[in-house]
C-alpha cells in the first residue's frame, strides 16, 4: 500500500513524525535531502526532545543509540563499519549521498574507510537531525579521542561514561585509563573496566558524579578514595587494607566525602578483618542496611556496625574478608 505522505497537511505530517521511533526517523531521513530537512525542522520545533544520544566506539562496534530520558530504553539508530567488511554478494549495499550503506536489522549501517571519521559522521548526523547532544559514551582504550571530541563539540557534559576492557586482550592500558581519569567528565555514571599495571597510581580528584564504578580498582589508595566526589562508589579487585578503611571512616566521621551515600569495596585478596579501630566509636547493631544501587538490585547488609559522623549523621557498615559496605543513613537521621 502506498501513502503519499508529502501530500498530507502539515498537522498530519507532524503527527506521523512524532509517532516514529528514533531509528525509523534516522532511516527515513536518508530518503531524500528534502525529507531530511522536514524531519530536522520537526525535531527542532519539538524541543526539549526527551531523547539522549549515546555513542559507542568499542572494538568493531561503532554506533549511535538513542535512549529515553530515564536512560532505561536504548535503541541503535545508526552504525558505521569499515569498508573492508562489505560483502556485496551477501548484503544489499546501496549508495546514498556518496556513502555505501546497508539496511540491517532496523537501522542503517554506513561504510567508511576511516573509522574515526565514520564514528564522528554518524554522531554528527543523528545529533543534528534530532537537535540533541551526546549524553552517553562507551569506548575502548583506542577511542579516548572521543572524550576530547565530545568536550569540544558541545557545552553540555556527558551523563554516562564507560571505558570498557577489550574482549581478547588482558594487557594493561595505563595510558588510556589515566587519560580518562583526567579528562572524562560525567554527571551520572563514570565507569572504568580496564586493566592497569600494579604500579599505576592516580591521586587526582574524581567527580562530582552520581555513581563511580572502578571494576579493576587495585590502584585505589585510601588517599585517592578520599578524593572521590560521588554518591555511590563501587571498587572491585581492591587492595585496600582494613587499616585503610579505618582511615577512610575517620575521614568520613570528620566530614569528608559529604555526598557519599554508598560505598562498596570488593577485595582482590581475602582481607583480614577483626575489628574497627576504637577511636571510631563504632558499635554493633541489629539494624539491617539497605541501598537501592543505580544498577538495579537492592543491596541488603546484615550483622552491621553503626558509626556516627560528628554532625550526627549515621552510617551502617559491614565488613568481612571479601567485602566492605558503608551505607549512609541520610534520611533516617534527618527524620
Amino acid at each position, binding site marked *: 500500500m502506498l501513502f*503519499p*505522505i*508529502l501530500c498530507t497537511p502539515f498537522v498530519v505530517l507532524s503527527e506521523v513524525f512524532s509517532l516514529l521511533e528514533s531509528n525509523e526517523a534516522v532511516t527515513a531521513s536518508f*530518503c*531524500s535531502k*528534502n525529507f531530511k530537512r522536514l524531519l530536522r525542522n520537526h525535531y527542532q520545533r519539538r524541543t526539549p526532545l526527551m531523547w539522549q544520544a549515546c555513542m559507542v566506539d568499542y572494538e568493531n562496534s561503532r554506533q549511535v543509540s538513542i535512549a529515553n530520558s530515564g536512560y532505561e530504553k536504548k535503541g541503535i539508530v545508526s552504525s558505521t563499519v569499515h569498508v573492508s567488511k562489505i560483502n556485496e554478494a551477501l548484503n544489499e549495499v*546501496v549508495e546514498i549521498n556518496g556513502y555505501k550503506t546497508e*539496511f540491517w536489522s532496523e537501522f542503517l549501517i554506513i561504510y567508511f574507510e576511516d573509522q574515526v571519521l565514520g564514528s564522528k559522521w554518524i554522531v554528527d548526523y543523528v545529533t543534528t537531525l534530532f537537535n540533541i547532544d551526546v549524553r552517553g559514551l562507551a569506548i575502548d582504550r583506542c577511542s579516548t579521542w572521543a572524550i576530547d571530541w565530545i568536550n569540544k563539540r558541545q557545552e553540555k557534559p556527558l551523563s554516562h561514561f564507560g571505558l570498557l576492557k577489550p574482549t581478547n586482550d588482558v594487557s594493561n592500558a595505563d595510558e588510556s585509563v589515566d587519560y580518562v581519569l583526567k579528562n572524562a567528565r560525567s554527571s551520572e555514571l563514570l565507569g572504568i573496566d580496564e586493566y592497569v599495571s600494579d604500579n599505576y597510581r592516580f591521586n587526582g580528584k574524581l567527580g562530582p558524579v552520581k555513581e563511580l564504578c572502578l571494576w579493576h580498582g587495585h590502584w585505589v589508595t585510601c588517599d585517592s578514595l578520599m578524593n572521590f566526589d560521588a554518591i555511590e562508589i563501587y571498587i572491585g579487585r581492591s587492595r585496600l587494607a582494613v587499616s585503610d578503611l579505618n582511615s577512610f571512616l575517620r575521614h568520613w566521621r570528620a566530614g569528608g566525602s559529604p555526598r557519599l551515600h554508598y560505598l562498596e569495596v570488593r577485595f582482590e585478596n581475602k582481607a583480614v578483618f577483626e575489628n574497627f579501630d576504637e577511636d571510631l566509636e563504632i558499635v554493633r547493631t541489629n539494624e539491617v542496611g539497605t541501598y537501592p544501587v543505580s544498577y538495579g538490585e537492592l543491596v541488603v547488609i546484615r550483622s552491621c556496625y553503626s558509626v556516627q559522623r560528628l554532625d550526627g549523621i549515621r552510617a551502617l557498615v559491614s565488613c568481612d574478608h571479601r567485602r566492605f559496605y558503608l551505607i549512609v543513613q541520610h534520611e533516617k537521621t534527618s527524620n
Partner: protein
Amino acid sequence: MSSTEQGTSSAAPAEPTTAPESAAAPEVPESFYYVHGKDKVVHKVSAGALQHSALIHGMISNLGYTEEQAKANPFPFENIDGDILQMVVDWCNQHKGKPTPPEDTNLPKQKEKLFDLVLAVNYLEIKELLTYCCKQVAMMVKGKSPEEIREIWMIPTDAEDEAAEKEAKKRAGKEAAGETAAAAGDAK
C-alpha cells in the same frame, strides 16, 4: 447503505429515531444532525457522536439549529467521498460518549483508503481518529530501508526534487516574462 443503532444513512434526510432506552435515567430525547459527502448521501448522526469532530461540533454550537432546521440543512462536505464519510460516521457512532482505547478494534480497516481517510479526519478535526490513522501511517515503514520507505511514502528522490525545482523556476520565469510583456503592451 449501512444502518447503526445511533444513526442511519439515506439519500434523503431520515426520520429521527428515539434514543436507546435507559432503565434508570429518565429518557432524554437525543438531537440528531445530518451530513453528506461528495455522493450526496445523507447520514443521520447524533449530536453525541458528532462531538468527536471539533469542526462539526463548532458548527452545531454556532448555528443553534432546531431538529427541523438540522434535518432540512445537512452539513455538506463536498470534499469528502461518500464511503469515507460513512467510515467516519460509523467510527463516531461506535465511540459516542467514550474515549478511544489505545488498541481500538473498531477502526476503519480499509488501508487502501487511508490517505483519503486521513485528509477527511484532519479536515473534520477528529483528533483521536487522526492519531490512530497517523499510527497506521507510521507503522507502514516499520523495519523498512530508506528505499522501501521512499517507495511506500512516495517520497521523490533528490534528482526528482531538483528536476521539479528547475521546472518550477522555469515556469515562474516564463510567467514573470509574460507579465512583463503584458505590462509593456499596456504601457504602449
